[in-house]
């Protein structure tokens, strides 16, 4: 299409603006890279499990870190910073869920890496268990998936979960109890059926 004439003064001004934009990031490159290396894998796993979609998790991961860098906040500790990142990721997943409401959630496919074949576990049993979990998780509400993942896969404390999900600490115990009950009920119903067949 048509491009507007831009003067040298405009170019200089816009260059200054662009350089200043990066200065508004809340950490420098080295600090960010260290923080990313520590947190990206668990955040991706969290996003993949709560959305049930690996490629969506890839997109949301990038977006989460971008918003985190642009956030004008100060953090008191590493844990506070990490919880804030999880909160951004959770909100993005919720937004995406609202946009695609009505579509069927596809569970994360169970792939078996070489490590799974060599570590002495029963690969077939592991695969069956994960398929059961995929189906069971798909029946839960997004909030229940988030709570259970953070508590039992990630090993977060109630306080960290509350901070990450933007909930009151006092309500975590009850919400977690209900979500756990529900998942255990679904898994319990699936496993005996499998044993019989």
């Amino acid at each position, binding site marked *: 299409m048509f491009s507007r004439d831009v003067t040298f003064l405009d170019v200089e001004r816009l260059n200054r*603006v662009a350089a200043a934009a990066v200065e508004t990031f809340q950490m420098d*490159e080295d600090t960010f890279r260290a923080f990313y290396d520590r947190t990206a894998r668990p955040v991706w796993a969290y996003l993949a499990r709560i959305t049930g979609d690996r490629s969506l998790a*890839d997109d949301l991961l990038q977006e989460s870190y*971008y918003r985190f*860098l642009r956030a004008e906040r100060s953090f008191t500790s590493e844990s506070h910073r990490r919880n804030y990142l999880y909160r951004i990721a959770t909100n993005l997943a919720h937004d995406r869920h609202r946009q695609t409401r009505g579509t069927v959630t596809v569970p994360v496919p169970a792939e078996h890496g070489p490590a799974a074949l060599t570590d002495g576990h029963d690969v077939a049993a592991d695969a069956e268990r994960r398929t*059961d979990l995929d189906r069971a998780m798909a029946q839960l509400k997004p909030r229940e998936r988030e709570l*259970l993942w953070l508590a039992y*896969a990630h090993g977060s404390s109630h306080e960290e979960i509350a901070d990450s999900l933007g909930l009151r600490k006092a309500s975590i115990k009850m919400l977690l*109890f209900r979500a756990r009950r529900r998942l255990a009920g679904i898994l319990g119903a699936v496993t005996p059926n499998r044993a019989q067949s």
Partner: protein
Amino acid sequence: VKAIECPRESDVLDAVASARWPHRVTQELADHVASCGICTDVVVVAEAMRSDHDAIWQQADIPSSGQVWWRAEMRARQEAIRQASRPITIAQGVAALVVLAFATVTGWFAWTWIAHQTPTFKFANVSAQALASPLAASLVVALCALVVIAPVALYLVLSDE
């Protein structure tokens, strides 16, 4: 009141997390889990989650930190430039509107002046023969072209990309 937590929950979670459950735990803990509904649920859910976590962890194919930083930097620059360019676009739009208004007012005054100078002139009196002359025909074509091209030109000037 129905209990929603058990004091042994953390022991059970520790045992699952450290892969001690079910073979390397004390008999007392195993007996407790067998008799406690809450701890039974904890074992079922925590075992499934841990094994799923390990599998997903291995599947994770995340971009490098340098790549993510670079993309964020590019995006921040583009957003800043877009934001800074907005006043220029607005100024150009205002200038175009002023020119358009000026042309309309000038055209209006010119038309009333012409009408005043030639009071007998009426479109209805213009014969078809006069319009068919080569000069009038080219004038009409030029006017039509102007009417079509002017909005397109304005759109191109005011559009961002």
